[in-house]
């Protein structure tokens, strides 16, 4: 199956800092999504981004499908950005709705 590697595994920043999270995947994919798991365990969808660039407020993401990586940018970090950020990918087999393969995540701590 597809391998998903996320880096860094852990990141501690001061409030206001910017950060870049990386996701590498081992095969071409049709589906790539970024999720934020907050300290209460909720998984929040940030971006559906199999290719290209998207922005939503202080967050933006870029996927370079031909080079098999995606980046998540967080600007002007706030303490509420703390949590685990997961990248998840899917390569359609043509048989239906396959599942997403998740990376191990980047654990982000924003200190006040």
């Amino acid at each position, binding site marked *: 199956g597809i391998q998903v590697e996320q880096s860094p595994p852990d990141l501690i920043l001061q409030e206001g800092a910017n950060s870049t999270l990386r996701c590498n995947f081992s095969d071409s994919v049709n589906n790539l*999504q970024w999720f934020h798991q907050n300290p209460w*365990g909720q998984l929040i969808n940030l971006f559906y981004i199999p290719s290209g660039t998207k922005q939503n407020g202080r967050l933006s993401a870029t996927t370079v499908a031909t080079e098999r990586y995606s980046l998540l940018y967080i600007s002007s970090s706030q303490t509420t950005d703390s949590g685990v950020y997961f990248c998840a990918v899917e390569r359609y087999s043509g048989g*239906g709705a396959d*599942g997403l393969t*998740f990376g191990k995540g980047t654990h982000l701590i924003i200190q006040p």
Partner: protein
Amino acid sequence: EPEVTQTPSHQVTQMGQEVILRCVPISNHLYFYWYRQILGQKVEFLVSFYNNEISEKSEIFDDQFSVERPDGSNFTLKIRSTKLEDSAMYFCASSQDSTLPQLTNSPLHFGNGTRLTVT
């Protein structure tokens, strides 16, 4: 904004017992999923469901697991004979808005999860 709802939020059961985890996906979504997350680990795919049948399942989803859509709104995961290693957070998710063109992929929306503890 519509959301996926899961009940119960916590479930404690004894090894060997059957449990049913319940989910109400977003009403106009077509695909439904179960994922699980063992404490401190990554999220793992269990099964996807479309058009009233299993679309895909992982190696984790063995004979002790089953899914059902008993009516037009509920989607359930049954674990027949729970084992200690089944302790995890179980997430339900849905996707693919039926009002959008069928070839349009859509983001996955997760419920808040059911924390299952097997003792």
